[in-house]
């Protein structure tokens, strides 16, 4: 049975699962990477995601306007990010814990609003698949990589963009410096809190988008607690990716591909308890990181509030 794993269908299946599963992680992790690069640890990603998922779903259900849904989800995420920013930047609260608070808040609010405004599980028509001209006609690869909905493309497109912004723009320079040595940035007239507010708001918007990618692009449905801890995995993937967009991509793909693999293992009836199959992506993620021995450290000022003395 195990040999079945190496057939083309299965291989393609795993890869396409990996691409889909990675999509929400990419959005949320890239956003989180930005906020961590500037020194803010946001553990509230999960809450922002689920509230974003609900918002997108609800807006699309009522307006059938997908773009509006995406924007609303990003807006709600950004609002949560703003609140997170206020608490952790202006009020200098413990970031990890306030994040847990925002997670609970987002979880509760999405659930509450769903009960009051929707009531029962419904579908919406979300983003359709957009086969890319020419590219999607390439046999095998075309279907695999170039026949997805627009948010999937966007998720993968965001990786090089994020990398470019971080490394090649003034904004990126500011973000990196604020996360490493806020005093230095401050002494050169860079507003540490402005930069950090920007990244937390951006991170929130991305988390919202991540939620939207679930509820109006990949699944087209909202169900209570549907993010199921993915926000926390997204945070963990930022560590895996050593705060670099390409690293995050590698982490998200690894985790998602192994997740796809374990699904196939179960589908092929390979005889291991399903629990152990489900464990696989987690174990492998730790394992790979243990072996790879990242040379990059965390941003020096991560979780440290900045306050000019005097």
């Amino acid at each position, binding site marked *: 049975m195990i040999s079945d794993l190496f057939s083309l269908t299965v291989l393609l299946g795993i890869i396409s699962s990996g691409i889909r599963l990675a999509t929400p992680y990419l959005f949320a992790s890239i956003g989180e990477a930005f906020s961590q690069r500037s020194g803010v640890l946001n553990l509230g990603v999960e809450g922002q995601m689920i509230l974003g998922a609900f918002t997108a779903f609800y807006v699309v259900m009522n307006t059938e306007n997908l773009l509006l849904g995406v924007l609303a989800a990003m807006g709600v995420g950004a609002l949560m990010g703003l609140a997170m920013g206020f608490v952790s930047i202006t009020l200098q609260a413990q970031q990890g814990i306030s994040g847990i608070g925002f997670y609970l808040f987002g979880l509760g609010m999405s659930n509450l609003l769903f009960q009051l405004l929707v009531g029962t599980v419904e579908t919406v028509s979300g983003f359709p698949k957009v086969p890319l001209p020419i590219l999607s006609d390439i046999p095998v690869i075309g279907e695999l990589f170039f026949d997805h909905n627009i948010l999937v493309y966007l998720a993968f497109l965001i990786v090089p963009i994020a990398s470019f912004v971080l490394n090649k723009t003034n904004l990126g320079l500011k973000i990196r410096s604020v996360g490493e040595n806020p005093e230095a940035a401050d002494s050169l007239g860079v507003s540490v809190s402005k930069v950090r507010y920007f990244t937390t708001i951006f991170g929130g918007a991305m988390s919202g988008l991540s939620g939207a990618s679930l509820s109006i692009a990949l699944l087209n449905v909202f169900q209570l607690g549907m993010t199921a801890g993915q926000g926390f995995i997204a945070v963990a993937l930022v560590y895996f990716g050593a705060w670099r967009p390409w690293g995050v991509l590698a982490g998200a793909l690894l985790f998602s591909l192994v997740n796809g693999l374990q699904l196939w293992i179960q589908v092929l009836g390979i005889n291991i308890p399903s629990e152990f199959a489900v464990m696989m992506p987690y174990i492998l993620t730790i394992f790979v990181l243990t072996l790879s021995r990242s040379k990059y450290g*965390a941003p020096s000022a991560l979780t440290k509030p900045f306050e000019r003395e005097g």
Partner: protein
Amino acid sequence: MKSRLNAILDALLPLFATLAALLVGAIMLIILDVNPLVAYGALLNGAFGSSNALAETLVKATPLLLVGLGICIAYRGNVINIGGEGQMIVGAIVATWFGLRYTNMPGWLMITLAMMLGALAGAVWGGIPGVLKAYFNVNEILSTVMMNAIAVQLLNFVLTGPMIDPIQSEKASQIPQTARLEEAYRLPRLVPTRLHLGALIAVGLAILVYFLLWRTTLGYRIRSVGQNKFASRYAGIKVERYIIIALMLSGALAGLAGVTQVYGVNFRMITDGSTSGFTGRAGYNGIVAALFGSLHPIITIPASILFGALLVGANTMQRVTQVPSALITALNGLVVVFVVSSEIWRKKRQQKRLTIAIEDQEFDEFSNEIPGHSVEEAS
């Protein structure tokens, strides 16, 4: 006098913050057409209104305190242990297995052994991220999050297979639970409620952890490693070892929390397929409790009770007012956010007091040492 007042104000700060959060919650309640006074009356009543309510609050606070104590240690060692959920689970699995496997032991002996084994299992589960961090530079936030996910699958596996209640395994429904521990193995009840000895043990451990951190070389080293790795190495402390020890101790206390949940409350393990069904989110809430308690083991005691009261009372409030339970979750989130946010006032005031203290001291010394201003005139 003044310093005592300040200390009291500091200690009450989380309480004020909680009240502020509840005030925001009141608006939501009004929107849901529920009288906030009735709701919060129910909350207070549910948390403290009767001896039974009080006992429930303490039962809830017990695992929070145990996990929170572990967080105090880990945090002092500058490691962030988000793995309390997983550590509770493996601690409970091992202790439960032991209690079911060996029957007819004296109760006190079994309880002692089970606690030790559970703590050990938790320590191992916490130690793995510790080793990974110390020697392989794997970030512990990542590894503990992953270890939680692994632990819950382990739980699902043993409770549906190897450790399932033999009675259940014959039934079609196959509830994923273990058999019950025998009567003798259960933690004694303190008063005729569900309040069990575990609560006292947790308080005892809080004092012990306080001593450990500030009165022993081990604690000294953990704190040293947590504050400054370079200086610790310079002081001859093996930094890696103490990172691991800090996470292991943290895991051990979480493991113990798992044991008390089984031996003190439910007498068996049950899962609903997620972590929180067994742990009651204590692995996460314990972190919050520890931070409410300023990461100080003694202050974590009232902080755990406060947070436990909030959780218990909120459930009562839901029952009485019939608001959707989602509101409770959101409200808890608000409380957490408000309480951590309130810390800034404590910090600000502490800073102020400190500088005043130094000023007084320094000016005294200067006035003794410095011989007048004659030099200035010389220019």
